[in-house]
């Protein structure tokens, strides 16, 4: 088993047993800055080496998926889940966007299993982060004369994680592989270790949200498991349609299945105040994140194999 999963379990178990273990918030920030920049840089370096003619269509398709995913889940959440409009929109935004932590675990999983994947995947992370936020906010508020587009753009494009991901991407793209090389001591060589610590902390955090699940009951749990599964299928189909490798398809499925817990909560909290943040975090952190990390990713890999027609 990949040790980083064990770090996640260590954090989860320690917190469930009420251990005193806690990492200072500044360390959590530091680790996430490192993760976001590293993923951005990696993606940017790959961009520099790939012809735009291959990338542009893929990018367009992925962005379209980013807009469609929340449009697909919103009515389900509203009608089937009977969530309030604001909460349904918020959940749709969370699940339409992506979790960078889950992405990193998927990359580590493929590395561990020595499965190849297209190296420009981090680009997709950046592309998928934003559209669902925009759609979610519009679903909650409607488009009226008063829609403050400037504030909307600010909240979606200038959030911390987007700035770091996109900034890293642009820097990596500008300086290319050789330019990024001297930075590898901090960003690339320690990546797996940083991810391990990050997952330790995620385990500690997840445990708190697991315990808040009781309050929201079965429907939320069902959506927390069902939505990622459905989205993974959409992601896997798109991956196969774009002729991605099995590894690439696995990652696209994982991205679709993952739910944001950094960028989206912050943006939605200010833009859609009437949505209950505890509800969407209980779903994305309390159910979907652990599900994806522990069970989902291998499953999406199987799914990708199936869809690509490769025998299991």
């Amino acid at each position, binding site marked *: 088993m990949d040790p980083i999963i064990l770090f996640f379990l260590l954090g989860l178990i320690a917190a469930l047993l009420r251990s005193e273990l806690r990492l200072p918030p500044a360390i*959590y920030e530091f680790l996430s800055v490192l993760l976001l920049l590293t993923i951005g840089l990696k993606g940017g370096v790959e961009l520099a080496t790939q012809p735009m003619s291959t990338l542009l269509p893929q990018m367009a398709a992925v962005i379209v998926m980013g807009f469609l995913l929340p449009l697909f889940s919103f009515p389900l959440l509203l009608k089937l889940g009977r969530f309030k409009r604001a909460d349904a929109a918020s959940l749709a935004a969370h699940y339409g966007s992506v979790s960078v932590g889950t992405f990193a675990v998927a990359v580590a999983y493929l590395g561990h299993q020595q499965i190849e994947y297209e190296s420009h995947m981090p680009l997709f992370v950046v592309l998928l982060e934003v559209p669902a936020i925009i759609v979610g906010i519009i679903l909650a508020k409607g488009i009226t004369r008063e829609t403050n587009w400037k504030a909307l753009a600010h909240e979606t494009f200038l959030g911390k994680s987007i700035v770091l991901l996109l900034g890293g991407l642009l820097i990596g793209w500008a300086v290319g592989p050789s330019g990024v090389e001297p930075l590898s001591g901090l960003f690339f060589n320690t990546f797996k270790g940083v991810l391990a610590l990050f997952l330790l902390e995620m385990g500690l955090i997840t445990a708190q949200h697991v315990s808040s699940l009781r309050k929201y009951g079965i429907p939320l749990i069902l959506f927390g498991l069902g939505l990622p599964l459905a989205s993974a299928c959409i992601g896997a189909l798109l991956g196969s349609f774009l002729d991605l490798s099995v590894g690439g398809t696995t990652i696209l499925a994982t991205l679709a299945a993952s739910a944001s817990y950094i960028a989206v909560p912050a943006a939605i909290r200010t833009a859609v105040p*009437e949505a209950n943040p505890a509800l969407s975090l209980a779903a994305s952190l309390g159910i979907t994140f652990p599900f994806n990390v522990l069970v989902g990713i291998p499953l999406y890999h199987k799914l990708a194999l199936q869809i690509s027609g490769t025998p299991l």
Partner: protein
Amino acid sequence: MTETIQPKLVVIITESVIETTLLTDLENLGVKGFTITDVRGRGHRGNRAGDWGIDGNIRVEIVCSEKLSRQILAFLEQKYYDNYAMITYCSNVSVIRPEKFLG
């Protein structure tokens, strides 16, 4: 040392995610000075342990005139109380150089 007015200390404890918006609002209300502390806590909206990103609280304290204190509280109650984890309280304080707070 002059002590001629009876200023108020207003304390606001709320979600750190709205810090920027809140400060803009306070500025518009005429607040010239404030102090912010990063804190954690528990209340009606559950546990806010401050362990990560959007889970923390801030504590804003403002020394100001009684009039402004009332305006602040009325504004916050109307704009934020229904949707955000927030408490406020208010007390009497004495200050030196009151002109610093009434500017």
